[in-house]
């Protein structure tokens, strides 16, 4: 069966510090991978998606970046965090495909607080 791991679970960082969140998927090959952000009491905002190693598409211009160095590894980074980067960050995977006809399965998320 497939599993998705995301860490850390919580993170408190000062403004201007760097960020690295990691997500790995097991039990499947060449998944589509996604990073979402959820502000408190709000819906999910798609930040990045990837359909293969080194292939990253950005949905929202911001000071975040994503990388996919291995097939089942997805990393969210920032060089300098802003207060507005606070939120609940979720990684998700779906079976590979060109169309939006596969369920997305979410990791447990990282709760990021910027001080």
């Amino acid at each position, binding site marked *: 069966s497939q599993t998705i791991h995301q860490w850390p679970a919580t993170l408190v960082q000062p403004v201007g510090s760097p960020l690295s969140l990691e997500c790995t998927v097991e039990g499947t090959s060449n998944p589509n991978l996604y990073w979402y952000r959820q502000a408190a009491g709000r819906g*999910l905002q798609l930040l990045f998606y990837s359909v293969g190693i080194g292939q990253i598409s950005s949905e929202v211009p911001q000071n975040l970046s994503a990388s996919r160095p291995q097939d089942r590894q997805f990393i969210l980074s920032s060089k300098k965090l802003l207060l507005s980067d606070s939120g609940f960050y979720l990684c998700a995977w779906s079976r590979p495909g060109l*169309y*939006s*006809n596969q369920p997305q399965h979410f*990791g447990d998320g990282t709760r990021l607080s910027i001080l």
Partner: protein
Amino acid sequence: QQPVQSPQAVILREGEDAVINCSSSKALYSVHWYRQKHGEAPVFLMILLKGGEQKGHDKISASFNEKKQQSSLYLTASQLSYSGTYFCGTALNAGGTSYGKLTFGQGTILTVHP
């Protein structure tokens, strides 16, 4: 374009039914439904594809009206475990590949009381 969910919140007693709607101003390829409990990750419920269909499992079902670009989630004989925030995620029918890109609604908070 973010889909619009209604109602924003609903309160039920165990055993009552509820309907949550998700509407789009653009043509949709698919509608995905998720439930999120407080502090947890969203959990997949079901997908509906264009062409108009209805799906269900247990006492939760959904429909997709392609003419209206609206999907409805039906929860019958609600249980305490149904409490949470329900999100619809939509993929546009843009005539090309979308790679699973979803735009989520703002959510509907469902509270079930004993």
